[in-house]
């Protein structure tokens, strides 16, 4: 047998084994029970409109708040970590290590219960609001490192050119370094956004009411109440409905920016 013929044969055999395995898994599943337990059309219909107007809305709202807050604090922490002033650097390092090192669930829990006791304040949104601040802290710790790397990736000549034109260090950062640094951070920031979207499901630990349920909590409660997983499947599809178009969109954006450079 010729070498190319043998190679083609091996490829076909591997492909056949793969297809057979997939078909076996599909066929061996109990589709009748699956449909009854996870694809119940009547129960699915019952979830509207709350699964959109409350659950999805809260998921998106929590994500946007955590992302925006994380971005602002993240830039601040990145700048502090790159500062020439020691105490700023030490604070930023401690902050990042702390909130990156703790499980998000624990941080949210801590913020929800420690903040109100420590400062005697009631945040807008109550315990959920405080818990969200925990998610902001987690997000900012990750973003700070991404932004720091982005800033450091901007060539030194850019800073020199800006300073030579008379720009102060602050103006140089604002107009020359940060805009270029942000471009570099778009892929990891997209990643961070998707991670945050999923981590909003942890906010339930702060205690959720009917109006503050996000997708996962909403679906889990529905699954428990009805002893049926249909809502979980719906929630899963809604997550993907947000994340997949988003990542596609960012990919297109990136290609466009690569061309502009």
């Amino acid at each position, binding site marked *: 047998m010729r070498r190319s013929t043998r190679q083609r044969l091996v490829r076909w055999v591997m492909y056949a084994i793969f297809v057979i395995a997939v078909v076996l898994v599909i066929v061996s599943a109990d589709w009748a029970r699956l449909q009854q337990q996870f694809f119940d059309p009547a129960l699915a219909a019952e979830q509207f409109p709350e699964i959109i107007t409350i659950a999805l809305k809260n998921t998106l709202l929590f994500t946007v708040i955590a992302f925006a807050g994380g971005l602002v604090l993240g830039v601040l922490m990145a700048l502090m970590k790159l500062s020439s002033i020691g105490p700023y650097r030490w604070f930023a390092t401690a902050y990042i290590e702390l909130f990156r090192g703790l499980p998000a669930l624990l941080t949210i829990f801590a913020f929800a219960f420690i903040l109100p006791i420590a400062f005697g304040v009631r945040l807008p949104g109550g315990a959920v609001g405080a818990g969200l601040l925990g998610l902001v802290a987690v997000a900012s710790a990750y973003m700070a490192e991404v932004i720091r790397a982005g800033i450091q990736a901007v060539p030194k000549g850019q800073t020199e050119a800006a300073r030579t034109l008379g720009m102060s260090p602050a103006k140089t950062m604002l107009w020359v370094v940060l805009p*270029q640094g942000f471009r570099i951070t778009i892929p990891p920031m997209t990643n961070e956004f998707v991670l945050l979207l999923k981590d909003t499901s942890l906010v339930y630990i702060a205690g959720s009411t009917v109006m503050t349920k996000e997708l996962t909590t909403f679906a889990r409660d529905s699954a428990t109440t009805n002893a049926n997983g249909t809502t979980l499947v719906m929630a899963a599809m809604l997550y993907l409905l947000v994340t997949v178009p988003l990542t596609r969109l960012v990919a297109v954006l990136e290609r466009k920016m690569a061309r502009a450079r």
Partner: protein
Amino acid sequence: MSSDLTTRAADTPAPGTPAIEIRDLHKSFGDVEVLKGIDLVIRQGEVVCVVGPSGSGKSTLLRSVNLLEEPTGGQILIEGVDILDPDVDIDRVRTRIGMVFQQFNLFPHMTVLRNLTIAQEKVLGRRTTEARKVAQEMLDRVGLGERGSAYPSHLSGGQQQRVAIARSLCMNPDMMLFDEPTSALDPELVGEVLQVMQDLAKEGMTMMVVTHEMGFAREVGDRLLFMDGGVIVEEGVPADVLARPRHERTQAFLSKVL
């Protein structure tokens, strides 16, 4: 903008004041001393070319003039003002000293026009319309009046370097520093950049040029400095130094590059 004009007028030095005066300048990177006591006076309107082997300290000397490198000792006077005095606003001094880099260092995220207007607006406080007018004027001057809307990456190296020169000129500097402005260019693009520099020199700009272009030094330079080992080994009228180098090290260097 009359206030801008009056403050600039106040900055203008007396006619006899040297543009750049350097006294016993020292610079060390760690244990390595790269400048070992440089004394140099550059008159207003003078074009001084600095040549020397790599590692001779010529770039460090140039970068010290606008404090991109912080000297470890000595004095630097720009138009009579000691810029190492901690009370001096270095950002303000730098607007009077244009600088052109080997790698151009244009801002890649901005159009050519924006490259030229950003510092005018954010540093000099000029209005957008005025900044654009100045920018267009300078782009015309370097022969790139049509390319204002392009991004730097769409330009050739020679064009990018001309834009970089125009960007510096937009600040109305009293003097220009050039750090090997043609070393990163393909040979066929060197001429257009040297031409722009020659035009500048003719118009009376004070220039300090670190270069390997001996032809340019001979044609355009008023004075040639040869540096080696952190000191100025020899200086004089370019044609003389190039034709009859007195010092052994100058002879050795020139025999390799000419």
